[in-house]
């Protein structure tokens, strides 16, 4: 009897806590969605409006008042390009760190990892001058390189962690059959750690889409504005900040990312800890 009442009590507490957090998590999202779907006059009113009239004003506005096509294309090119660069560099590097023993391996691993610890603001000024001297300011190429650099440590370490899980016997067998090391990497290791590679790519995409500081410094026109920085410029002069347009753009970026994350759900925790936790 006693134990039964205690467990139902703890069950009550459990759902109380979890639903309280769910409300705090989701209410701002729903409310922000309602901002995106209401007319401008109802965003900032004398009395906050919780049940607005439905309106697609913002949707029409983002496509007519701003070069949304450019912003989308810039985000897509810079982000996808950076992830491709990351994978091309990280897969061999991860294989080297996971499978070979050699001098300086630990130091190289540390160094790659420690680039993750660097605050963007600290290198922002020299990077700005670097790209200015290369004539790459306000181009998606500069963004691509920066995003690739930001994510390379993470991508390398995630893939390395998945490579460590592959049993050695498989490679040994292939090696006995005369396959070269490079061949083994391409046709055995890469397919086998595909979940890890996809996880790393998805997490790199999230961080690249979110990037703000470097993009703010590098991009100055629609040539290079990405969604993340473009929405910070959604102001109509004397009208102030155009919140409903910002909200819609935020959801425009959120939907595909949510889709990607659901795809790698099981691997998310492992990816976020750079391989330290196996989810």
């Amino acid at each position: 009897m006693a134990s039964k009442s205690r467990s139902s009590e703890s069950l009550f507490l459990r759902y109380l806590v979890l639903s309280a957090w769910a409300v705090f998590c989701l209410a701002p999202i729903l409310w922000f969605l309602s901002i995106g779907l209401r007319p401008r006059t109802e965003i900032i009113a004398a009395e906050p409006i919780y049940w607005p009239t439905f309106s697609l004003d913002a949707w029409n506005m983002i496509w007519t008042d701003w070069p949304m096509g450019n912003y989308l294309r810039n985000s897509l090119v810079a982000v996808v390009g950076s992830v491709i660069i990351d994978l091309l560099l990280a897969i061999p590097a991860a294989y080297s760190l996971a499978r070979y023993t050699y001098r300086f391996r630990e130091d190289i691993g540390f160094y790659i990892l420690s680039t993750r610890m660097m605050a963007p603001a600290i290198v922002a000024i020299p990077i700005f001058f670097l790209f200015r001297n290369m004539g790459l300011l306000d181009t998606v190429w500069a963004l691509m390189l920066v995003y690739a650099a930001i994510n390379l440590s993470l991508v390398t370490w995630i893939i390395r962690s998945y490579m460590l899980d592959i049993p050695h016997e498989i490679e040994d067998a292939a090696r006995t059959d005369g396959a070269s090391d490079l061949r083994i990497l391409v046709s055995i290791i890469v397919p086998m750690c595909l979940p890890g590679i996809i996880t790393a790519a998805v997490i790199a995409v999230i961080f690249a889409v979110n990037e703000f500081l470097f993009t703010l410094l590098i991009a100055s026109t629609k040539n290079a504005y990405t969604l993340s920085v473009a929405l910070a410029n959604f102001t109509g002069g004397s009208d102030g900040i155009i919140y409903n347009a910002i909200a819609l753009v935020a959801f425009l970026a959120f939907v595909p990312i949510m889709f990607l994350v659901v795809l790698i759900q099981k691997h998310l925790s492992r990816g976020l800890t750079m391989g330290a936790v196996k989810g």
Partner: protein
Amino acid sequence: MQDSMVHNSSGWAASAARPGIRPRPRSRLRRKAFPYLLVAPAMIFLLGITLYPGVYAMYQSFFFVRFNDWSFAGLGNYTKLLSDNEFWQALWNTFVMGAIALSLECVIAITIAAFAYRDPWVRSWRIMFLMPMLFMPSAVAFIWKLAFNDGRIVSDLLMRLGLIDGNLDFLGSIWLARLTLIVADVWQWTPFLFIIFVAALQGQDAEMEEAARLDGAKWRQIFWNISLPLMMPIVAVALILRGIDIITMFASVFIITGGTPGGATETISYFIYRIGFKTFNFGYASAISVVMLAITVTVAQLFVKRFFRSGRE
């Protein structure tokens, strides 16, 4: 995690012992160079994009820079830094807001993870709770700017609950402005810790818990005495990663407060940005960068090494 440690050590040992059995022996030099060649492109890229800026910033920090006009300053920028109240204030703000946000996030994430991981609906909770993390931080900053300040939603809700009498000027007072940034950070990034903690708890041996339960332990005792101590290494890793990101807080400061009131919410990242790109005092901004770089490298070295050891080997 136990698993990975075993794999790890045996893996390295095995690959070291194997080369002898290769049927097609290659030249020794090529075989020795191969792992370096694999890692070289990544290294060169990272060195290019971190070492060059490091050296450049160090060089520039010895000059007073006004657009293209550089004049040698010696240690001028550094001595200025030591006596610059704005610098110390920014350092303090970063620390205070970071420490409060990180503690809140950690406590909340552990609590909801402890409740969620044994729930039959844990997958739904996870999907629901991770959503805030997937919005662009710049957009999130606008959500909270509107809620706290421009749209007065938070004030309105608090008034409806009878907690306050009039509108609160959230961006007008030091602690309310800081609170705004902290709430924005907690809302967006508690999910990061939650996802990791839930996975850690789910990965734990259920039998040990079951045995303790059969011995009459309450779930609260089990959590505090068994589950939590077991996941401490993972908590450490997660807090380090989150801590690093929190001290680089920029987008929300840029969008919500701009460092106001009176510099009370200016973080180091925003301070460097302001000195460099608003007052165009690049030499001075570089000096701050160099000092921060030195601090980061030292701290990272300590943390990374520990993280690397405890987490992987």
